[in-house]
């Protein structure tokens, strides 16, 4: 049932043949314009109501977004982001029935460096994105993916963006279809296009150093799947940091159901089953202080494309690593081809996958030490000796035994008490306390503190999926700064804990 041959015509649908000139199933009067949800035909008006209702219900029934809350909306320029933006605008407008009441801020992360866009293409893309963001009327920010390697700077980014968003007046003529009142500015009056179009490239403060660093790190990952995972982890971290620094309490993303179904299967294929539930849920709570929401979760990509077409929304197409690639370029690309092909023949595929995914539930990580340092997902490495993880470790050891005389090894589980690990207990250079004063705030600057952390130590803080990515890199220590900081912090804590172990009361 699940096999699809290369040249098989995907017309063997399970449902009955379509009758031409079908009427809408809701109002039964207007001619239908779209078939969705297995075999339901909608007319234009009913489709609009259907989409709006589903969007509002997704946000409303979970009661997670409160009135006046600041929400960061991630806009990538693609069709789902544009649809999300439009739905938010409509939902916030005065005319809306029971209008939405949160305060959105938009953010665009420039990932042109990932695919190596030329300067010309880059400028064109940025110009279009900029006009898209500006026309929305909401405060917006632009940053680069490389900024995730230099998180300190994220705080300062606001300073130059807020000037532009303060003069953010709505361009009346451009909004003929979608007139919406901007709750921030409040006036639809005089039109002024702030003459910023030509200088939009200056709106992103290019961080050349970080760019170089990022290029080096990305280049050292060999497989495209690994690169995609790495980019995704950086993107998540950047969104998280940006939201924290600028006072947002939630982040909203535009992933559609079809994309999330692909995501679920890809996660399971790449050893990220622990995070599969988080990545596809409506509310991603992997970070306790910041929630990532996905209100378009119940929409298929077809519905979104139709919505965009009806409203003539301009999307900006930005190529990714696997655009124009072979089917097997990356695991995600292959999975996408599989799911899309299956969906064409069996229209309930995506909803089945999503429904099954909903039943997964991962235990939420409580303390900071049980997060993966790279992707912030829960650590899933506290497993027994006969697990795939143990096998991976073993083979790594065996294969590097000749190189370093068996000194390298990775600790078994994450805690200080290494009860699981029988292979070896070596691997921590940090422990030498001869010169360090013992304080964990880095003030003594002894040479052991500055020594390069052992690879095993770094890998210990990563989840299984991220370990695979990190091990592809030539040097694990070239991971982003935020990862290395986390590693150092955890190590200091475990050293400190070991020191005061005798004084701790065991409350188990």
């Amino acid at each position, binding site marked *: 049932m699940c096999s699809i041959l*290369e*040249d*098989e*015509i*995907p*017309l063997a649908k399970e449902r009955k043949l*379509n009758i*031409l000139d*079908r009427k809408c199933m809701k109002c039964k009067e207007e*001619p*239908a*314009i*779209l*078939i969705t949800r297995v075999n339901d*035909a909608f007319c234009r008006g009913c489709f609009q109501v259907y989409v709006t209702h589903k969007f509002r219900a997704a946000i409303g029934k979970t009661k997670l977004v409160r009135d006046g809350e600041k929400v960061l909306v991630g806009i*990538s*320029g*693609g*069709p*789902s*982001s544009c649809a999300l933006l439009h739905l938010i605008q409509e939902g916030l407008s005065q005319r809306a029935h029971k209008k939405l009441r949160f305060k959105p801020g938009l953010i665009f992360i420039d990932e042109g460096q990932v695919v190596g866009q030329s300067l010309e293409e880059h400028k064109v893309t940025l110009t279009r994105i900029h006009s898209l963001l500006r026309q929305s009327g909401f405060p917006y920010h632009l940053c680069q993916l490389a900024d995730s390697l230099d998180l300190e700077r994220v705080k300062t980014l606001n300073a130059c963006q807020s000037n532009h968003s303060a003069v953010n007046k709505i361009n009346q003529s451009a909004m003929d279809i979608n007139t919406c009142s901007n709750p921030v500015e409040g006036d639809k009056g005089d039109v002024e296009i702030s003459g910023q179009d030509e200088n939009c490239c200056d709106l992103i403060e290019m961080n050349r150093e970080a760019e170089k660093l990022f290029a080096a790190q990305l280049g050292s990952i060999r497989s495209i799947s690994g690169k995609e995972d790495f980019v995704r982890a950086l993107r998540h971290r950047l969104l998280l940091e940006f939201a924290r620094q600028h006072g947002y309490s939630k982040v909203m993303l*535009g*992933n*559609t159901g*079809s*994309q999330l179904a692909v995501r679920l299967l890809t996660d399971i294929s790449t050893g990220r089953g622990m995070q599969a539930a988080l990545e596809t849920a409506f509310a991603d709570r992997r970070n306790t202080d910041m929630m990532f929401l996905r209100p378009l979760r119940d929409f298929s*990509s*077809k519905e*979104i*494309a*139709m919505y*965009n*077409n*009806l409203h003539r929304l301009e*999307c900006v*197409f*930005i*190529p*990714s690593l696997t*655009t*124009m690639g072979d089917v097997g370029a990356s695991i995600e690309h292959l999975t*996408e081809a599989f799911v*899309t*092909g299956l*969906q*064409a023949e069996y229209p309930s595929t995506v909803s089945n996958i999503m429904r099954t995914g909903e039943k997964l539930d991962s235990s939420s990580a409580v303390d900071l030490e049980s997060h993966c340092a790279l992707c912030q997902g829960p650590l899933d490495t506290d497993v027994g000796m006969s697990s795939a993880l143990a096998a991976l470790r073993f083979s790594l050891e065996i294969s590097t035994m000749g190189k370093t005389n068996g000194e390298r090894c990775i600790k078994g589980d994450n805690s200080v008490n290494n009860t699981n690990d029988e292979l070896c207990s070596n691997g921590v250079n940090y422990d030498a306390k001869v010169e360090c004063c013992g304080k964990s705030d880095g003030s003594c600057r002894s040479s052991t503190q500055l020594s390069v952390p052992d690879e095993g130590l770094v890998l210990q803080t990563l989840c299984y999926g991220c370990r695979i990515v990190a091990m592809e890199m030539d040097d694990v220590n070239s991971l982003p700064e935020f990862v290395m900081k986390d590693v150092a912090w955890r190590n200091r804590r475990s050293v400190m804990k070991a020191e005061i172990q005798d004084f701790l009361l065991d409350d188990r």
Partner: protein
Amino acid sequence: MPLPICIEFGGGAELLFGKVKTHEVNLPDKEASWTIKDLLTWMKDNMLKERPELFIQGETVRPGILVLVNDADWELMGELAYNIQENDRIVFISTLHGG
């Protein structure tokens, strides 16, 4: 008489057609009327610049490409069997690579 129609691309599909989103074409004369199936064959021979397998699979479009005829889903018009009328607007939107 040649049949004038408008073909548009979206969602990245334009990359396969010289990065041009809107094409006004005149389909050459034929005794039988033009169906979408004929159009696809014609596009493959005349318009597709590269990588035909990313657009066409077998006799129909690749899964993931949404086809709209005058703003309506082509499934409601008969899919491949729809007879193209003069000045029809046919849109091919790639729904892969969301965002």
